[in-house]
């Protein structure tokens, strides 16, 4: 079909694409143009184009900045610990939910367990302060009632780390079951029936049918998680963290915000962001490749 004829017939589809494409160009590719200020001595008066090129000076500054390395270390540390603590929880919970025979109870449990996923970190932060606060927090009130000393859950960095991780489990475990439950539902029912005939116990069935049945899902999710090791959300460390535990709670996302927006070191913060984006891209491509490979193999 000639182009003009094709266009006359399908122009509506292209006009539907017009605004979204403009959106992506302005709001997604626009900032990519702005990335050049990582190589410039940026100031707002001269703008992005007018500021002076300084080559790799800004990056030299980044790599001599101790706080940058601390933020990088904390990002990797929090993500890794989070993976260790928060990864198994939804898996175990999903298997338990799958074994439930009472439908209404299962539905009710799921409904409640999903709720924390829909609660903002600001609200969670407010709840955390009420529950873990040193002065008047719920847990420390209980401890005081038993005549025990208060535990600085939020103001000592090691306790803070534990608190941070536990909150993560609470927030994500329920929602994380969804994909596992979908995979479990996809397992051939005949396998379970055959095992029943052979007299296999419930534990045996979980071990030899349920878990192998969802091992691809587990591996894929693990790979995706590993691929996101260097990217970390802003809200959680920023809100749950505080000045007293900055040593652990300052991560790349909050560091960029503080250096760039609060202290106005625009070029430095952009360079840190660019570093993070590039390393993140490598991680992401590697994990994408790995999970594609995994999917192909599981089909064979």
């Amino acid at each position, binding site marked *: 079909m000639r182009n003009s004829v094709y266009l006359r017939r399908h122009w509506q589809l292209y006009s539907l*694409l017009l605004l979204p494409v403009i959106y992506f160009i302005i709001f997604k590719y626009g900032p990519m143009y702005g990335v050049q200020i990582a190589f410039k001595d940026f100031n707002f008066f001269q703008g992005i184009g007018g500021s002076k090129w300084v080559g790799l000076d800004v990056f030299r500054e980044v790599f001599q900045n101790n706080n940058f390395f601390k933020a990088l270390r904390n990002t990797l540390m929090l993500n890794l610990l989070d993976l260790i603590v928060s990864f198994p929880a939804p898996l175990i919970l999903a298997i338990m939910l799958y074994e439930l025979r009472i439908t209404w109870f299962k539905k009710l449990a799921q409904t409640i367990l999903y709720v924390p996923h829909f609660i903002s970190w600001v609200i969670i932060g407010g709840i955390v302060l009420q529950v873990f606060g040193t002065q008047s927090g719920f847990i420390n009130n209980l401890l005081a009632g038993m005549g025990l000393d208060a535990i600085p859950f939020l103001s000592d960095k090691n306790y803070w780390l534990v608190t941070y991780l536990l909150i993560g489990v609470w927030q994500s475990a329920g929602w994380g079951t969804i994909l596992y439950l979908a995979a479990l539902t996809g397992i051939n029912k005949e396998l379970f029936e055959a095992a029943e005939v052979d007299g296999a116990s419930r534990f045996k069935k979980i071990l030899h049918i349920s878990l192998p049945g969802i091992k691809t899902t587990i591996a894929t999710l693990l790979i995706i998680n590993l691929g996101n090791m260097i990217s970390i959300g802003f809200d959680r460390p920023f809100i749950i963290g505080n000045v007293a535990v900055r040593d652990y709670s300052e991560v790349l996302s909050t560091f960029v915000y503080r250096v760039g927006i609060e202290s106005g070191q625009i070029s430095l913060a952009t360079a840190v962001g660019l570093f993070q984006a590039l390393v993140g891209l490598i991680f992401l491509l590697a994990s994408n490749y790995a999970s594609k490979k995994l999917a192909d193999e599981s089909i064979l």
Partner: protein
Amino acid sequence: MSERAANRIFDVFNILLITFVVILCLMPFIHIIAISLSSSRPIMAGLVSFFPREISFEAYTQVFSDMSMIRSLGFTIFLTILATALSMAMTIAVAYSLSKRDLRGRKWFMLIIVVTMFFSGGLIPDYILVRNLHLLDTVWALVLPGLISPFYMIILISFLNGIPKSLEEAAEIDGTTHLGTLFRIILPLSLPALATLSLFYAVGRWNGFQDALMYINNTDLYPLQLKLYQMIQNNQVSDLMQQEGLGMNKLMPESLKAASVIFTTLPILIVYPFLQRYFISGMMVGAVKG
């Protein structure tokens, strides 16, 4: 032990364990609700755990009579509806066009969009862009930058691909235009997916915090999350200072903090049960695709 007995024991244990986890999950909420409904004497004495003591609605009266809180609620509702409506319109437009597999140039459009899922300019270039477009301290700073989520777009495309092509072809033979097909056939068949994505966009906007922190200085345009954050933050600083013996600022009453938290959460908790069945099926569609 007979097999049936073993099965029963397993079931009982499983139910008990899940009940325990569910209670653990709810405990923080129940505590907050109890605090918000108690008067300050038992709170200060550390007597309130899961049941309100000396019930008082004082905190809620105060929250609801705080005009800045009500204005913030009104603004957040307006913002959420505006952002969700525009996001959905845009996402539908792009997903419908790109769900046509033989659309010429489709691959290029996909590429332009998918690249943005892997690489972004970053926080500071985003900020400079919003600043240069003179969007700081306007509602548009909270609407436009996150207008289309490529991830949700892919979910919608894979849903649309599941609709039998014969329906569209029949309409096309009847001479219906693409837009006519979209409105008369595709959209009515996609209601579950549209409900799911609307919920995701709306919850994301309702809970959104970082962009407001960066782009909004005018307190009239504070979304609830930012307002709540500042309330709690000021309080946390004084909590830390008290602990270090640095200052004796008057703390905001605990019950008022708790009531504000409930106030901000309630709208989500009200809508959530009704839309729950939609978003689970929506998640599945997304999961299948990857």
